[in-house]
């Protein structure tokens, strides 16, 4: 499969819990099933929190990249599954 192209970006860098999850959910509700949203976050809890959210809601995290230091930026690609 080709690397999915995000149709929407959620930039929650600097925001703490619960914004990464809440804003991601809002974005995922705005896109169609099969489309992908990109999430940029610096909250260190964003990775476990989004993974738990994806498990609970049945959406799919396609990739997680970590770049930089101080702060680390997490980049998620998340596919709307349902």
């Amino acid at each position: 499969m080709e690397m999915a192209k995000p149709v929407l970006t959620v930039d929650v860098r600097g925001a703490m819990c619960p914004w990464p999850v809440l804003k991601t959910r809002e974005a995922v509700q705005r896109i169609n099933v099969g489309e992908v949203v990109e999430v940029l976050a610096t909250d260190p809890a964003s990775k476990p929190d989004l993974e738990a959210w994806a498990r609970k809601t049945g959406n799919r995290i396609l990739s997680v990249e970590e770049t930089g230091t101080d702060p680390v930026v997490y980049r998620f690609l998340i596919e709307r599954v349902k």
Partner: protein
Amino acid sequence: MSEEKTRLVIVASRGTADGLYPALILATTAVAQGKEAAVYFTFGGMKLLTKQMAETIKPSVDLGVSKEQLEQLLAKGGMPSLLDMLKMAKQSGVKVYACSPTMNLFGLKKEDLVDVVDDIIGASTFLEIASDPKTLALFI
């Protein structure tokens, strides 16, 4: 309650910023995870539902920062005020319950409350809601 959904209900009993933020954060996140969520505000927690008091809520001594310091720290993390957070929670679908005995205790009327309250309930109704096997109940 719908058949397939699980539910989170929280008793918010403390009238401090550090007592109320966690309740609202957990409830809004539960909705984002596809659960139903409700917060039952009682005793000190009722301050947030009371028009005259909602803006005056301070952090507890235990937290070790002043109201102003906490507001600055929260703003840095993009966190809205408690009242805005309450309104957002309500908008996202969190049910808001006010405690009838607390209102009685402090002489509060429905018109004294912030316009987010779904229902005024007592212990028996809360326990019925909390007793459902698909419901997780937390006391904060």
